[in-house]
């Protein structure tokens, strides 16, 4: 964007909004909005506390395990659904129901099944992320041109080789797009799960700060989470761009 002939950097609007926030905060209109400077100070303070570091560790652990399961199960399931009609018929309906279902409503049930601990959070992350990964992997496999598979067969490729050298490579752009959206959904899953369980990780901190009206730390934690989600998404997006040259060209 350019303004009066000057190039404005991408994130400039954030600074404007932060300034507005600061002014509103300084005016002391409502206690919900403390000044931005106080939030940032609280943020620096927050990341040095033991409770934050432990919560972060727990959160990252549940997120990574949940995502690993979602990718490890989601991609193969999606690929199988794209290749084998009967598997598609068995799972298709369920995947489509769950991909748009309000999964937060399931978390209380999960708490009963998996207890008030990390297991519930891991399952929540998994359930939030896995369906879109399945659907995108399936879509990627289904758009592999039949002639490309015929080509590999005609030159003597085995089923395993066709899968490895043609189908997976050809479906890679869609698989990665699914993982990227899955990562974003997984971040939602880990936060919503922890807030609903309320005794572990960031959920415990959110509960603590909001109950004691510690709005500086509450907002600082929220912003740290938002930033983390954006950075994660950017990392996967970057991986996607590397292979885009052929995704756009086929």
């Amino acid at each position, binding site marked *: 964007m350019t303004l009066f002939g000057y190039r404005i950097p991408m994130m400039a609007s954030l600074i404007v909004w932060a300034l507005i926030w600061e002014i509103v905060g300084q005016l002391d209109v409502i206690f919900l909005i403390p000044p931005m400077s106080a939030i940032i100070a609280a943020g620096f303070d927050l990341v040095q506390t033991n409770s934050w570091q432990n919560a972060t560790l727990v959160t990252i652990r549940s997120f990574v395990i949940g995502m690993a399961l979602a990718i490890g199960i989601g991609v193969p399931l999606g690929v199988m659904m794209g290749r084998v009609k009967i598997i598609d018929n068995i799972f298709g309906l369920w995947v489509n129901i769950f991909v748009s279902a309000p999964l937060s409503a399931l978390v209380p049930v999960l708490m009963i099944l998996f207890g008030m601990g990390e297991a519930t959070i891991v399952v929540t992350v998994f359930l939030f992320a896995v369906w879109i990964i399945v659907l995108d992997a399936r879509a990627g496999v289904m758009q592999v041109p039949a002639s490309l598979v015929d*080509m590999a067969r*005609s*030159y*003597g490729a085995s089923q395993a080789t066709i899968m490895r050298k043609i189908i997976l490579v050809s479906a890679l752009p869609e698989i990665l797009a699914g993982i990227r959206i899955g990562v974003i959904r997984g971040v939602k899953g880990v936060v919503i799960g922890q807030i609903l369980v309320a005794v572990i990780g960031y959920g415990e901190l959110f509960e603590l700060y909001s109950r004691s009206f510690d709005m500086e730390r509450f907002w600082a934690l929220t912003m740290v989470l938002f930033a983390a989600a954006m950075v994660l998404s950017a990392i996967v997006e970057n991986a996607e761009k590397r292979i885009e040259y*052929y995704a756009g*060209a*086929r």
Partner: protein
Amino acid sequence: MTVNALAKEDFDPASVVTHDPVVRVEAISKHYGSVEALRSIDLQFERGKLTTLLGPSGCGKTTLLKIIAGLVPATSGQIVVNGRAVTGPGPERAFVFQDFALMPWATVLRNVGFGLELKGMAAAERNRIARRYIEEVGLQGFEDKYPHELSGGMRQRVGIARAFAVNADVLLLDEPFSAVDEQNRRKFQEDLLRLVEMERKTFIFVTHSIEEAVYVSDRIVLLSPRPGRVSNIIDPRIDRTANPDDIRRDPGYLDVVEEIWQGLRHYAE
């Protein structure tokens, strides 16, 4: 007139003499559910010659080619290649696809060498062979380009180079020039004739263009539609030592084109 001769149902393919058949199609039938695509096709393909399967759409010519390639199973009958009955794809046959079937994520070099890669040949060796055929189809300098950087005609040259690189006895070409523009098509047909001359392989070629068939073929097999049957076999006997433009004006060439058109025209209505 020839109209009746071409259209008659009781044409006997066995009456046509074929020396040294490399591919034999024996009583091949194909059904898709209740649809009969091919009915008891008997054909022989002569070694070192270019035979064209020609017919209107829906006559099953591509299906027959894919059955010969082993990509589509026949409902009954068998395919014999070099005296051996085959049921699947094999290294003695290579296929050139209508839509080129190039891997968009791989360079020209890797695409051309892909058949060899699947055979487990070492990279240095297969790249050497691939480069030779890239040069033979006139694509030197494009080894490191990706398919989307090439024109349709150049992409099909990659497809042809890939088929040549595996050194198969039989090349199966499924309407290879139909996605190529008209100017390039003519150039392609001339290049194909040069390659047939040079490589001494057996070519089985599918097209729906009568002119193309007469121009490139040693023998033309006419198929009739629904169900596909052999309706006639024609040897054009065009003198290919003449230059390409003269051939296309040659009365003999034009007569064969006209004869085939008369035989096929009642399917067009």
